[in-house]
């Protein structure tokens, strides 16, 4: 167990995190575990199970779990048998005092995540469903397993509440020696935890560090304080010491850094968000930290946190995020494309069937079942032949609900290369903003991919938020070669990714089709062209809808044939302007 490989250090951190989490699952919120299925994840899971007290429940939430299983609801068979309502406890209640494991958390829908975070926040589970009103206290920690595919990530509202963000995706089997903590250590620490004191200066150091690293939310420093307490308890101490703070800062704050702390000589005003509400004038210009109070503790905690910023994150602290070209395309096949047009069915709601709204027979019968006895009596006076039949009334009708019937994402893929880039980019920016304004009423989303130099970048992940769109668009760069195949591949990946979530993608390419950088990132027209044609054909095989806007000064044959290979609608717009582009996109979506 020496520090031979960087992987071993990551693993040791992960083991410490497991122990601290096991000491105070509810207090520390939980663990975001980014790891592909493999030995590292398996071992970490086993370690956590080993460290938790024997009576602490560990419940797994499958991806796409329904409300009746998660929150609880009416146990229909038991209810009918017993002749009185029987409540089926949901997973959130069952996890009380233990840990809730979310499988494939990166696929968690925002509304599912909101159910979990609401329970974390309030410490109780409230069931108001299907004739049942019940509430019960529940507190648990969460392990959100993120399989780390492409740009997918668990909903930020959930991640914000989880103290530990671990990334085990690059660990090999050699990196994972035996963990340095044992079951009994955790039990001992749990006994000490309630008495652990937190000195004033410790909180100050954590807050200062969080701010210096550009962490806007106030939850991380608070979570770091809890982790520091657990760390002290693990050492059997009843007061938080400097080492605990440094460990907590490294574990909790470092993975969330959005900026590198500046060196102490520059008086660094923390550059947070620009868009401040105007009603807090005093919040606009944060002063430098008070020098008198600036003890060495702050510096040491900050240093520890800065040193622990993961390497991958360090690279990403550049303004834009990069989408890996080799990103896998899971979940693409086997999906019924037809039904996607109408969205994914997500349960049912009361309502009358009519044109375009289908009756959900099973749910209607479920709804009718508990009332049979009542109706039997009401109908008793009626003729005998009516008896013993199932009585279904209009009130029971349930219709199938589809996930946001019209949810679409328009993915702009913009050629940002060469001299014309700046002009074209400005057009695309304008169009994205117009389109966003146009479609946020309908809750559609837009995304923006740009390709230039030797690769393609996802500049704006799918969003409905004007706020985020404006921010990402502001820093759109241009110039360099034309890696068209990379652009098509990244776009295809994103589109399939969205499709697997039940969102229908529309791809809009803005390019002249003149590729000059191959798939391998090397210059060469012939190869670049062959690669982009191959990519285009693959896009066509996936049956993705696409619109190809030729931005060349004169419509070119190259662009036209590429569009044909994509099975895309071809549109020559030598001087694409934002308004016309917007109109073209709108028409093609209506088609």
């Amino acid at each position: 167990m020496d520090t031979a490989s960087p992987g071993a250090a990551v693993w040791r951190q992960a083991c410490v995190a497991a122990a601290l989490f096991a000491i105070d699952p509810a207090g520390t919120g939980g663990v975001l575990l980014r790891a592909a299925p493999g030995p590292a994840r398996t071992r970490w899971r086993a370690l956590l199970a080993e460290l938790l007290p024997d009576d602490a429940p560990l419940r797994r939430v499958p991806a796409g779990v329904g409300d009746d299983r998660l929150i609880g609801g009416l146990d229909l068979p038991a209810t009918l048998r017993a002749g009185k309502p029987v409540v089926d406890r949901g997973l959130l209640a069952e996890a009380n005092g233990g840990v809730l494991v979310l499988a494939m958390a990166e696929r968690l829908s925002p509304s599912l995540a909101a159910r979990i975070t609401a329970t974390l926040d309030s410490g109780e589970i409230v069931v108001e469903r299907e004739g049942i009103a019940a509430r019960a206290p529940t507190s648990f920690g969460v392990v959100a397993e993120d399989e780390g595919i492409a740009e997918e990530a668990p909903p930020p509202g959930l991640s914000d509440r989880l103290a530990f963000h671990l990334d085990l995706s690059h660990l090999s089997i050699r990196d994972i020696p035996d963990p340095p903590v044992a079951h009994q250590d955790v039990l001992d620490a749990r006994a000490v935890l309630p008495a652990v004191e937190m000195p004033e200066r410790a909180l100050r150091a954590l807050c200062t560090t969080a701010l210096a690293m550009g962490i806007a939310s106030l939850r991380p420093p608070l979570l770091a304080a809890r982790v520091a307490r657990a760390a002290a308890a693990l050492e059997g101490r009843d007061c938080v010491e400097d080492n605990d703070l440094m460990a907590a800062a490294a574990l909790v704050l470092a993975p969330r850094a959005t900026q590198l702390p500046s060196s102490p000589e520059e008086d660094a005003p923390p550059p947070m968000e620009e868009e401040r509400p105007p009603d807090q004038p005093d919040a606009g210009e944060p002063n430098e930290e008070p020098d008198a109070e600036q003890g060495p503790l702050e510096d040491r905690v900050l240093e520890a946190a800065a040193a622990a910023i993961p390497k991958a994150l360090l690279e990403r602290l550049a303004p834009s995020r990069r989408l890996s070209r080799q990103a896998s395309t899971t979940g693409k096949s086997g999906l019924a494309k037809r039904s996607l047009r109408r969205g994914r069915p997500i349960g049912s709601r009361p309502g009358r069937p009519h044109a375009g709204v289908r009756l959900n027979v099973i749910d209607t019968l479920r709804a009718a079942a508990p009332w049979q006895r009542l109706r039997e009596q009401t109908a008793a006076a009626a003729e005998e032949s009516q008896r013993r039949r199932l009585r279904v009334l209009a009130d029971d009708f349930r219709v199938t609900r589809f996930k946001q019937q019209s949810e679409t994402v328009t993915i702009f893929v913009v050629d940002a290369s060469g001299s014309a880039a700046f002009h074209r980019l400005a057009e695309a920016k304008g169009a994205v903003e117009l389109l966003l304004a146009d479609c946020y009423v309908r809750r559609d989303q837009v995304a923006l991919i740009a390709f230039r130099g030797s690769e393609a970048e996802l500049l704006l992940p799918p969003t409905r938020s004007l706020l985020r769109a404006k921010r990402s668009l502001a820093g759109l760069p241009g110039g360099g070669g034309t890696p068209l195949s990379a652009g098509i591949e990244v776009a295809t990946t994103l589109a399939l990714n969205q499709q697997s979530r039940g969102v229908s993608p529309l791809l809009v390419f803005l390019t002249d089709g003149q590729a000059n950088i191959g798939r391998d990132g090397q210059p060469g027209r012939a190869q670049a062209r062959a690669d982009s044609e191959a990519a285009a054909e693959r896009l066509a095989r996936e049956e993705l809808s696409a619109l190809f806007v030729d931005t060349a000064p004169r419509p070119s044959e190259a662009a036209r044939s590429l569009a044909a290979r994509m099975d895309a609608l071809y549109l020559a717009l030598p001087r694409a302007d934002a308004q016309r582009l917007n109109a073209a996109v709108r028409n093609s979506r209506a088609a």
Partner: protein
Amino acid sequence: MSSRGVRPNYPFSAIVEQEEMKLALLIAAVDPGIGGVLVFGERGTGKSTTIRALAALLPDQKVVVGCPYGRAPEELHEGWDLGELDEGGAKPKVVKRRVPVVDLPLGVTEDRVVGALDLERALASGEKVFEPGLLARAHRGFLYIDEVNLLEDHIVDLLLDVAASGENLVEREGLSVRHPARFVLVGSGNPEEGELRPQLLDRFGLSVEVATPQDIEARIEVVRRRDAFEQDPEGFAAEWEKDTAKVRRRIVSACNKLGTVAVSEDVYRRAASLCIALGTDGLRGELTLVRAARALAALEGKKEVTDQHLRRVAPLALRHRLRRDPLDEAGSGVRVERAIEEVFAA
């Protein structure tokens, strides 16, 4: 940790900064007819904490014993259709209770919102009895929807509808019930998770934008208090009870004064020109603006509404009523500020 009951809410008076959000909620407490409050902001800004804190802050209210709709004694003779649950006895008993702040749980089903037949009694004895839902429970109080942008559209529509009309109408299994449901709808959400449908926006009376404090001392104070609360919720709440009581007295006195606060012709005129300058549609903006200013004056113990009051509530009452211009970089709050400067300079 797991054995104790549900912990108390974080006290309202212990919330650091966030003056605008606190003001909006106090205004709604003084004048529940203001039309609801929408709170939008980033993660970790204490939106839900502040709203949930209302329950322990507000002065107790009188309620008829055993009334499943939480009616006040003076509401007994209003003429509703309450099924078999009517408590119209000659001498109803009255008790005091806490103002309800009902949290609308995500995943709630429609029958629990509006009320439905009592399942237990239907199963056990075949009786048809109406069981009131969350709308009845929220009567004369607050109904809170966290993550309002994630709630099913059909439920949001239903809530807004009832909030506007003040009554809930249920028809089921041949039972017909119409009961009062007057409450302040409070919604909160995070704009990063998607914006609210614009047609919902202006159905809220006031809207607030919250952000985390940027000042390090304020941030430390937030974390310090929160940490103390987590360590000992009961003790922390007790420590702040004196300050909470102070705010409570302010609300009581403002409620009593509200009817007597004068609004001059000038104030109406200013409110109108402000709305014209901003191009807000309809009269709801003006009306809310004046009402909110009046509630603020009452909270400050003043006898009449001044320009100062209008200025302070204008962003709350108007920012969500502006036409959306996605190409305008300035936020709507800034546009309201600009209009205020122009109108009040004149």
